[in-house]
């Protein structure tokens, strides 16, 4: 299971890459593995929207389940990954790079403080 050291993580299995005041958000290798074959990605936020942290920004549907993706850090949505509409399988193939979901211009970077680093995420206790 890949857990890149330079990223931040949430307990809902989202990853966050910080690029200045921009947060790039996706779901982790563990998350895509749990979901299995992903058949549909719907990004429910539009470019230009301002969302609070904790709001649903995407829905990922696999042959097994559908999962909400929550925005770990609030701010203005500056980009969404349109490529996932036609190629949802990218989330399985390359969750940390090609399958980024959304880019947010952070309103309050201190919201990052509550996020986990790679080591903490790796040792996260799972319910199952």
């Amino acid at each position, binding site marked *: 299971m890949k857990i890149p050291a330079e990223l931040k993580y949430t307990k809902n299995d989202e990853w966050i890459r910080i690029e200045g005041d921009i947060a790039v958000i996706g779901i982790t290798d563990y998350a895509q593995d749990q979901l299995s074959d992903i058949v*549909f990605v*719907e990004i*429910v936020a*539009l470019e230009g929207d301002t969302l609070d942290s904790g709001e649903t920004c995407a*829905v990922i*549907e696999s042959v097994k*389940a*559908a999962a909400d993706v929550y925005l770990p850090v609030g701010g203005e949505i500056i980009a969404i990954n349109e490529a996932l509409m036609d190629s949802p399988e990218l989330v399985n193939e390359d969750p940390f790079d090609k399958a980024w979901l959304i880019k947010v211009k952070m309103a309050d970077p201190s919201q990052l403080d509550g996020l986990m680093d790679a080591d903490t995420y790796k040792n996260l206790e799972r319910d199952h």
Partner: protein
Amino acid sequence: MYTPHTEADREAMLKVIGVKELDDLFQCLPDKGKYPTLDLPDGISEMEILDELSYIASANETPQELISFLGAGAYNHYIPAAVDNILRRGEFLTAYTPYQPEIAQGTLQAIFEYQSLIAALTGMDVANASHYGGGTAVAEAVNMAYHQFRGRKKKIVLSPSVHPHYRGTIHTYMQGIDLEIVGEDLDPEASPDDLIELIDEDTALVLVQYPDFFGRIYDLTKLGEAAHEKKALFSVHINPISLGMLKPPSEYDADIVTGEGQPLGIPMSFGGPYLGLFATKKQYVRKMAGRLAGETVDNKGQRGYVLTLSTREQHIRRENASSNICSNQGLTALASTVYLSLLGKNGLKKLAELNYHKAHYAADKISTVPGFMVNPVQPFFNEFVVHCPLPAAEINEMLIQHDILGGFDLGLDYPGLKHELLVAVTELTSRSEIDHLVSVLEEEYHD
């Protein structure tokens, strides 16, 4: 097995809501309404009840006994005997919802064929497995458009010449949702182009009927363009028989096509069950309510059918569902499939032409009666408005004395149109029946 609540269950429930006994729940009812004595006759035998019910039923007058010119959304078309024969096969009649492909191949294939026929007829990429009726289909179109823009566009432009019942269904469906519905208060004589100035950036959907409720046919090119210019969806409600000769709505770049499928081999039967047709472009398929059957191959490479798509919200994320419809109208969808298969492409074209020509013959003849007028330039399909010298209600009362079921009194839905009679003609209306109507009108209303 049906298991009613036990006495212990009831007591536990009453305790939770803080009520001592069941009767306390009905305290608000007036005493005279509680446990009234019902003055019912004693039970009678099957033979006797059949006799009594037949007697009551004989008070009905049906289009089989009368000459009928009534349409307004439900049409008296000929239904080939094979339709009913196939419908009544036990495998179809008793089949339950086809969640399990391993035991429901026949039903699933029938749905797949139905979808293919409706997609071909409307010219759209994809049709769902059907809705409960034209009204539901139209309301689901509004619902879909609203959710397509995630509630950010808060207005729909609705033509006043969409069937009044469907418009009523839209209002019922959308109550409680922050959505403004404009256009209905335009003059019913308005053409689709008159709706254009109502379309703005906040418009989610522009919805018209084609032919419209008054039977009129308009070119919808400009309206469709105007809707798309403001990034609104464009929805067209059709009469499926008319598409045997009219341009399909796809040629007006419709995003959604809905229809009432009753004319396709389904009896009028006092208003239902009917059939809601719903088709859309592929790009919107994920927002479509209902379900979709698809063709696939099984693990031996053999052709098979499955429920390919039903919006995930209906099953696993119900709190996020944009529609609560996850079923379809199986038996009437099958009827329309059999009906269209029997007719074929050329048969449907001939049928549409027959309806068109008979209706135009009727309109020409009725126009010759002094005081009665049909708009001579407005194109129409199999239904048209007759302007009458008296209120349409009085004309209908007179006609029924002659065993003629007149048209639809438009004053019932449009207070300004009390003198307008909506007259429908189908392939079942014979030339002699039309001539008879005209001679009755001439006799009753000569100077």
